[in-house]
């Protein structure tokens, strides 16, 4: 492709004055840069949950029309903004999964040109049909008018801290203590965000250093309860799907993960819906936190990537095929698409994340 476009670009040049005029016109239109054949390869780190989005051939084509070819490598959001081993590789952009990471990147001396939130995805809880049925009985889960299931996360955390059995939460299919598992907050963003959410809920407000001193132990207890924690949100989601109800009853993830998995193979989903075994289910914690996905540009060439990713066309693809919401948490494109039936159009009740200082101390405490 690249070669033929280059030939095409050279051909344009050969057309003389008119051609040169066309060339100049094209040069000023970033979305047509690719036609000129001068593709720039961009190397950067991305959170694993966006890997499938960037690998989507249609996304690659549109990014290509901006004259860009991406070489994205997966790394944990927390590590990509602070690990010397990663930063020393001179990434041209970073695409972590939380706005706090912009602040952390700056503190670690990353020379940031621009940083804009490109996508949003709320933190959700993935579980299984029999767990949802039990939690509805005990009032921890309620359904909204449009059929979205909301989880009283504070009540669940209190139950876990009290050592409540699954049966006390109405879940008879599982034996032993109730639990929820996230990724390692020191490495992966979904666990990091969940840590902030837990501390906020326990403190009853967006926590400051005083609240951390008071509720840090309880937050640590929730994470101790998880045992072995995965280093990436993608891995944890796969463990959830592979392990099923018995091995992975409840995990923390991004809203887009299940929907992306469903859209990747609709037939598989239809088969699961028809089967008698426990079905995966998504619960929206009330309140939840939004995982923003800010693109941090370091190299001037990466600015063009920012423009590409915020175009309506790419925003629509992000939503309809991968379940990501736009910069303000809203959706671009038709609500009545396949994804529209699976996800709520709006997320009510969103908490801001605690400040970066508080989060860093919290993560250190959990890891201690």
């Amino acid at each position, binding site marked *: 492709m690249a070669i033929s476009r280059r030939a095409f670009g050279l051909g344009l040049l050969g057309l003389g004055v008119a051609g040169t005029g066309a060339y100049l016109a094209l040069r000023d239109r970033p979305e047509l840069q690719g036609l000129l054949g001068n593709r720039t390869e961009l190397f950067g780190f991305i959170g*694993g949950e966006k*890997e*499938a989005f960037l*690998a989507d051939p249609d996304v690659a084509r549109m990014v290509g029309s901006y004259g860009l070819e991406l070489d994205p490598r997966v790394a944990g959001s927390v590590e990509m903004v602070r690990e010397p081993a990663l930063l020393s590789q001179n990434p041209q952009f970073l695409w972590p999964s939380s706005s706090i990471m912009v602040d952390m990147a700056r503190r670690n001396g990353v020379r940031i040109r621009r940083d804009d939130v490109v996508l949003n995805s709320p933190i959700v809880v993935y579980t299984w049909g029999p767990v949802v049925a039990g939690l509805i009985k005990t009032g921890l889960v309620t359904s909204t008018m449009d059929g979205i299931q909301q989880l009283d996360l504070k009540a669940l955390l209190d139950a*876990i801290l009290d*050592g409540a*059995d699954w049966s006390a939460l109405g879940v008879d*299919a*599982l*034996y*032993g*203590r*109730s*639990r929820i*598992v996230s990724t390692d907050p020191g490495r992966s963003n979904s666990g990091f965000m969940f840590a902030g959410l837990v501390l906020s809920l326990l403190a009853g407000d967006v926590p400051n250093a005083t609240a951390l001193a008071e509720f840090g132990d309880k937050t640590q207890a929730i994470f*101790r*309860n*998880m*045992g*072995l*924690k995965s280093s990436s949100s*993608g*891995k944890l*989601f*796969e*463990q959830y*799907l*592979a*392990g*099923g*109800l*018995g*091995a*992975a009853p409840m995990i923390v993830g991004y809203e887009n*993960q299940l929907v*992306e*998995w469903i*859209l*990747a*193979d609709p037939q*598989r989903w239809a*088969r*699961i819906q028809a*089967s008698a*075994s*426990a079905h*995966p289910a998504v619960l929206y914690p009330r309140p939840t936190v939004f995982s923003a996905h800010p693109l941090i540009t370091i190299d001037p060439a990466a600015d063009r990537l920012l423009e590409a990713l915020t175009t309506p066309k790419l925003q629509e693809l992000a939503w309809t095929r*991968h379940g990501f919401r736009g910069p303000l948490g809203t959706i671009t494109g038709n609500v009545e698409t396949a994804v529209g039936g699976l996800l709520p159009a709006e997320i009510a009740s969103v908490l801001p994340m605690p400040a970066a200082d508080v989060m860093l101390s919290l993560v250190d405490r959990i890891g201690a």
Partner: protein
Amino acid sequence: MPVLKSLAVAALALVALALAGCDRGSLKSFSFAAGSENTVLQPLVETFCKQRNTTCTFSYEGSLDIGLALQSAEGVAADAVWPASSVWIDLFDTGRKVKDLTSIAQMPVVLGVRKSKAAELGWIGKDVLMADILAAVKDKRLGFLMTSATQSNSGASAYLAMLSSALGGKAVIEPGDLDDPAVRGTVQALLRGVTRSAGSSGWLADLYVEAARSGAGYDAMWNYEAVLKETNDRLRPLAQEPLYAIYPADGVAVADSPLGFIDHGKGPATEKFFTELLAYLQSSEVQKQIAATGRRLPFSSDAIAAAPEPDWNFDPSRVVTAIRLPEPAVIRQALDLYQGALRKPSLSALCLDFSGSMQGDGEQQLQAAMRFLLTPQEASQVLVQWSPDDRIIVLPFDGGVRGGFEATGDAEAQAALLAEVVDEQANGGTDMYACASDALRRIAAAPDRADHLPAILILTDGRSEGDAQAFLDQWRRVEPHVPVFGITFGDADKTQLDALAAATSARVFDGRGDLAGAFRAARGYN
């Protein structure tokens, strides 16, 4: 990731079709380091290798050995690792050498109990808790086979489930919990139920079947649900009663059988072979064959789980409550605790060949191996340290037994033993039977032998003089029977050791490449 994989699977299926029947760019060879429970899946993989004209080789190792190798400076030589559980990769792959780790199947580790024994214990059709198993062990109504928790995933899984249960229903084992004397006491009491240990789940199942065939049967065995199915499928034609599956209701550990790629920089063809193999293993047709072995598949698979067999309580569609595995540091502490304190202590007699043919290299390597085995700081790095409750007998021999040294597994006692061995020099003839006979006499005379797992370990480099028959006659009179393991050395003729091991339900380890490694492997069985 899941989407990527599904896309890749679809794309690769097409590629696979396109390439079928033409061996353009085929890869010469590809190697696996796998847990023994995967033996049954080897033919499926080999079908794929044949399609590609690629020679596939398998080396079967304990999951912990695969983990330890990943952690070592040399790393793993194989192109792919396939241990029983991803926990060992999480724990040991600190250099992140393993790529594309993908779960192939799920296998809970459960207790199979001879059906008449299960009926006698009142466990048929009942929820059985770990506390019920403990009570049966304490009343001396139940003993079981279980692999070594420091070598094999099934043993480690059973052990971690025991620890979880002993905590009285906490969600997970936390740092500090293992210091609780009550927890230690409970688990130690449970592990007194071990009648034989092993380094491999596959070998343990063979031992159970062989013993049942010879009429000497065991009561029970901790193993994977799918291995119990294989075992029962072998017991049926022998007209032996099946193992009844007990899923401790307070939680079992579930192995996820992950297959991962190790990039040795051999080029894209090797990695491509691996991704295509993954796609093949996840294809509908192959998933059906994997399900037929009794393995549980991801719920999204369209393969139907193997049919329930209520006769022995088998149902791979039934939800089992899994224990939550603890943090890496806690697992490591638990393993040290197992090896150094909680496991059933061993009563080991080591017959060391100091005959003339061992002069030079042989002698030096034997001395080095003994230094490794009797130096706690070295042995504990690969989790084969002795516990103070162990009893060690060292018998250097040539044409006869030169003398015997007995000690506990206490660090000072080990040092004293080692001091005796370093003075030995190679010289004279070879009679391993004379040594085995002396070892057996000493084991039979040990006052607390019922509280120990007894074994004789013969290390030799060659053909032995002496009388096998006389030894075996003596062996039959000592109950419970003592397995006689062999470690070969130099240009050893294995025939005699093999015969001895077969007659005593033991096995022979090859010490020619790595003598210390062979000792480590042998320790898993004792």
